[in-house]
């Protein structure tokens, strides 16, 4: 490999159009960067390589949308929440999880069921596709 001036962001979104969710894997330490970037934040290696993620993940925290923290276009998501997502490949980031309600959150917290399994999905926004997650029902 060599350090390349590469359109990583565009490639990520073009792959979503093909139904693939891509991250970048460090050839040195194996850590996966998601969303994909050039370098490895785990070991500091200067390069990473394209890697298709499985989409299997866990949600570690749950914040419900409210007046301050929602936008009219988010209504199309249906019921949803924000939170910390951890991919099975290890990356952690903030994302949206569909299918979460206040009632479900209460139940999960009371039963000590966090983190809860979620699955990545490709979601159409205005003009491009992005990645959200769906609660995996038991």
């Amino acid at each position, binding site marked *: 490999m060599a350090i390349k001036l590469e359109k990583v*962001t565009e490639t*990520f979104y073009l792959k979503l159009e093909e139904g693939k969710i891509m991250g970048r894997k460090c050839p040195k330490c194996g*850590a996966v960067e998601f*969303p994909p970037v050039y370098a490895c*934040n*785990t070991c500091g290696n200067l390069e990473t390589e394209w890697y298709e993620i499985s989409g299997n993940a866990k949600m*570690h*925290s*749950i*914040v*419900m*949308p*409210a*007046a*301050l*923290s*929602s*936008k009219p276009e*988010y209504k199309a998501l249906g019921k949803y929440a*924000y*939170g*910390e*997502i951890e991919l099975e490949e290890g990356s*952690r*980031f*903030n*994302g*949206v999880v569909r299918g979460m309600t206040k009632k479900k959150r209460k139940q999960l*917290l009371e039963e000590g069921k*966090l983190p809860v399994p979620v699955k990545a999905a490709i979601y159409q*926004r205005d003009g*491009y596709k*992005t*990645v*959200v997650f769906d609660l995996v029902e038991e």
Partner: protein
Amino acid sequence: MAVMNQTKINPYLRSVSIIGVGCTPFMYTVDHEETNGLTEGEMFGYAALKAMEDAGVSPKDVDFYFHGEASPLNNSNYLTPNIQVANWFGMKGKASIHHSEACCTGYYAIEQAVNAVASGKYNCVLSGCIEFGDSVAVPNHPYKREKMTMEKFLQTTAWLYERGYTRSFMAGQELIYDDAAEWYKRTRNLTDEQMDDTLNHMCITNRKNAAVNPLSITKKTYEEEAKEHGFEDVMDYMRSPFNPKMGDLLRAGGIEIKCDGAAAVIVCATDMVDKYMGNKSHKPIEVLGVGCAACEAITPHFEVTATEEAVRQVYEVTGVKPEEIDIFYANDFIITSHLISAEIAGYLPYGEGWKYICEGRTAYDGDKPINTNGGRTSFGHAHAASGMADLYECVLQMRGDAGAGQVKKIPKTGMLRGYGGAQNICTYIIRTLE
């Protein structure tokens, strides 16, 4: 925990001290005849000259200045806004630089000024910050301003977040409001009611502090406000629709009051304070160290994570222990910052901070004072200038010059934790020189 890089910072090459501070009132300039039409040069210039006067220096003594403004293009019709103001405070021809770290600007203003002196390049530096958070310059008019509409404000705050993924993923920019409260409530096992009360008590304390501060934008306590609305118990008022839930956990009272303001500081090499301060009687305050970190908003618990790293750095480089901190400031444009940063810094004990707050111990007359000026929800939030206004207040407290809001025991050591734009964290420790 997300992957987090760490930085080892080194002691300064030479000691740097704060010798002068200045601050405007935090205000809605366009709402009042006597302030409507104030310009960038006048606001920044006033704060700069007050800091020079306080330090006992003239503009001729000051080698360089830093200029902080979070959103100069939107608010002031300026790019490179440092250039446009120099003549107002007698520094024509002297070099300067502009910086913007959103709401953390006023904290990074210290980091940069101290580095400039500690490196040996300059001996005496001005660092000032300004923001018109409530108004925007009328284009093509020399001094008129108009109110900032919420639509315009929200348009500009959207620029704070990374374009490629964060905005697209729809979560990071929304989590700024409730993430820290969710994190605290979950990790400390608080009930919904305990968390709600804690958030409300912070608002009440901030307002109590602001009510006795001459420069704050709010003067009425929540107790007074509650009575006006027919509530005998202030907590009933805070839990009522008069203080509506705006976030998952956050209520209206826990959100910044955006306004206009400017503040400035003069720092110099500690071994030169006698030369600069002349016959000034106040003691210089040494900047012992500054810790900085930044987590872009796609990072889980970005404020918490970056605060932990910045606090680790500043304690490591200074050798100061949490129990040595006498007074604490947190940029709390979301009120939760006040609690979580004080606990992360060890100023309040782990898992117990919320109790200190609910017992009123963090008010200016308590034993663990925090944000004695009233913080962002009551002193006001002139975005870039807020951190510098916190330093102004902290310096007055450490001199014993804070008037009606003076804390009981004059603080010797203070910690200030800046946060802004969901990204930057800057924490520093200052101590009065004996």
